[in-house]
């Protein structure tokens, strides 16, 4: 089974969610800034690459975990992905799309976009990390819900 976490860019909220899922992020405390920076692909995208899915790893049950970005069209992308996979015979028992945008706050949204703009990366990154730490409990809860659904 493939777990597909998505957010606006794929390399902020979705990445932290996927990181929690895979045990790359702490389960019992807030992460330090460097733990977020050290996530593979964190903030490592240009605006022209949003949409590209990245493989993060497999969890304890062998489920493959990916992240990708949907800009501001989460409904459109979700529908299209489901329809494409359905056409090729892949059903909901073979993948799970996880929308972590519900965990977003303004700092993540604004910082995430600025971080993709040349010259504004540092400011954007700082804002995004601050926002992600604030949202961390919600992201953790969402991952817990996903894992409970998978068992």
């Amino acid at each position, binding site marked *: 089974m493939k777990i597909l976490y998505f957010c606006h860019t794929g390399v902020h909220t979705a990445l932290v969610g996927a990181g929690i899922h895979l045990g790359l992020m702490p389960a019992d405390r807030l992460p330090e800034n460097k733990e977020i920076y050290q996530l593979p692909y964190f903030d490592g995208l240009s605006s022209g690459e949003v949409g590209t899915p990245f493989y993060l790893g497999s969890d304890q049950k062998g489920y493959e975990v990916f992240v990708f*970005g949907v800009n501001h069209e989460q409904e459109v992308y979700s*529908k299209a992905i489901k329809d*494409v996979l359905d056409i090729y015979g892949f059903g909901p028992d073979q993948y799970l799309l996880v929308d972590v945008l519900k965990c977003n706050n303004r700092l993540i949204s604004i910082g995430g976009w600025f971080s993709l703009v040349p010259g504004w990366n540092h400011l954007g990154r700082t804002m995004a990390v601050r926002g992600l730490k604030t949202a961390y409990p919600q992201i953790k809860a969402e991952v817990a819900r996903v894992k409970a659904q998978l068992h």
Partner: protein
Amino acid sequence: MRIVYHCYGGSHSSVTAASIHLGYLPNDRIPSYKDFMELPLYEKQDKPDHGHLRLMGIDDYGNEIYIVGRRNQAKSFKLAIAGIASIFGITEKDLYLADTMPYVNWKMMLGGFLSRRWRWINLGRPIVIKGTQASFLDIANMVQSVKMQVASNEKLRS
């Protein structure tokens, strides 16, 4: 092979391209207002339909032809769909995404917006059709390129 023509709303340029591909529109003249309005899905889709793939038909080579309205950000849409498809082993030899937005002129944008977004159909529809007629030959050329590319992919596969 499945070919997906995509545009902003899935109501005009993608439908026109798919219809040309399938022979639903004449290839020896510019289609009339009536020709366009008789097409399945032309001027039909609204916001709730965006994202859904719609099967328009099967071409002479057995390829399934779809359309989808994907709003803005064509590039990231293509990256996401093609990227996730490839995760499941669906390659570009199985799924071809064709963006028809480069062939959309201002009349199509204005008319489409007035008709689909604001529901000023009596005003918007004639404008969008005029625009589609003006762009028809360019869209037809694009479809021809898609057909050639798909045929070339099929040759490489076999």
